[in-house]
């Protein structure tokens, strides 16, 4: 293992490469997808422009190359474990991108993505619950089997407008990075930075107005990697707090629909698109309750305004996560 200076330089190089892969390869990939006709309508814009999908393969490539650079520097097997989890989530997503799968497929299949974390024993036997730690060597395993599908599907469900999923992930990564810096290992912090850099690179293309959509392959890999990093850095509760708006969205949806279904299977939509391309909340009692529907209860908004509102909620939940980190810091040092 190189000295501290070598590790820092390695992390910076890995992060820059992860960022640049998105920046350099994504335009060609967008052209390739358009050529192959792999496009979907962006329904919330005039004339419904065709937007290529999925961006998952390039996003995964950037993360894998960035993290492998770190692996060759450190030899840390946790990197391989997290990459396996991310790759399995990507495969599940890409299947869902190209085939119509039932509602249970994504949460069910994502259990497989949790297995590398258990095999490589990436978790500590003690769960960090802010006010102290609980020794749960057996209970941790079912907890991981639940966490990864939950994180993957939560991020997937928030991907409703241009740039939301990626922007949301970038904002909520900051509490995880700070928590890892204060309470976790340096090696995990090193793994987090190329992931953040890859997200920033991809955001350049996913932000409003999107040039490409991540697809299920992109959102599931983002969510699964986020969950894996939260477990590896002992920041599970911090991650839950940072993800609260997305968790709230999933909770509202599930509690109103009362079953796991794909959005395309819904008979009634939670929002209505007006002629001026603003959105308003549906008045249909049978329409599912979602975060966006609640946002729109205050009045009609444009897509860009909704995206900004969701970012503000992510910033708010991340602030709560930072307060929680401060609380944990005071308790652990006192």
């Amino acid at each position, binding site marked *: 293992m190189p000295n501290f200076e070598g590790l820092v330089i390695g992390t910076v190089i890995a992060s820059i490469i992860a960022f640049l892969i998105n920046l350099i390869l994504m335009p060609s990939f967008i052209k390739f997808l358009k050529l192959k006709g792999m496009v979907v309508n962006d329904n919330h814009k005039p004339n419904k422009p065709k937007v290529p999908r999925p961006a998952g393969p390039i996003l995964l490539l950037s993360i894998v190359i960035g993290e492998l650079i770190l692996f060759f520097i450190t030899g840390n097997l946790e990197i391989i474990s997290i990459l396996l989890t991310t790759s399995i989530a990507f495969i599940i997503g890409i299947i869902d991108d190209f085939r119509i799968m039932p509602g249970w497929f994504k949460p069910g299949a994502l259990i497989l993505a949790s297995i590398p974390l258990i095999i490589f024993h990436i978790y500590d036997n003690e769960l960090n619950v802010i006010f102290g730690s609980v*020794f749960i060597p057996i*209970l941790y395993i079912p907890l991981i089997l639940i966490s990864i599908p939950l994180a993957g599907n939560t991020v997937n469900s928030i991907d409703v407008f241009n740039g939301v999923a990626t922007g949301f992930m970038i904002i909520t990564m900051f509490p995880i990075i700070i928590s890892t810096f204060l309470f976790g290992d340096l090696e995990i912090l090193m793994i987090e930075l190329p992931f953040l850099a890859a997200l920033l690179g991809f955001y350049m293309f996913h932000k409003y107005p999107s040039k490409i959509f991540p697809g299920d392959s992109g959102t599931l890999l983002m969510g699964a990697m986020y969950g894996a990093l939260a477990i590896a850095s002992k920041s599970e509760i911090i991650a839950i707090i940072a993800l609260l*708006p997305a968790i709230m969205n999933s909770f509202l949806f599930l509690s109103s629909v009362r079953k796991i279904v794909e959005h395309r299977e819904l008979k009634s939509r939670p929002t209505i698109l007006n002629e001026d391309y603003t959105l308003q909340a549906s008045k249909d009692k049978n329409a599912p309750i979602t975060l966006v529907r*609640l946002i729109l209860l205050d009045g009609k908004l444009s897509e860009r305004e909704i995206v900004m509102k969701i970012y503000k909620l992510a910033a708010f939940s991340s602030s709560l996560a930072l307060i929680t980190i401060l609380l944990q810091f005071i308790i652990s040092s006192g």
Partner: protein
Amino acid sequence: MNFLDLKFFILFMWILVMTACIFIIFVIAPISKFQIDQNEPLSFLKTSFIQATLAVIIVGILIIVLNKFKKVYLLKKLSGKKKS
């Protein structure tokens, strides 16, 4: 921030998460101290089972409380909208 602000909903969820953490640390975790034989695997499994059951009950209670809060929140939000 007023009650009808979505941030209030998130703040309420945060309070629930923190309450659950306090309960885990001060109620569930100390149960292992009462384990009769610290080295016996069966006793260890029994304690883990009790702790897991209690944790599941807490999650269940949290979901019920959140569901009740959601109903009150939606009712107030919709009635507030009608008034305005």
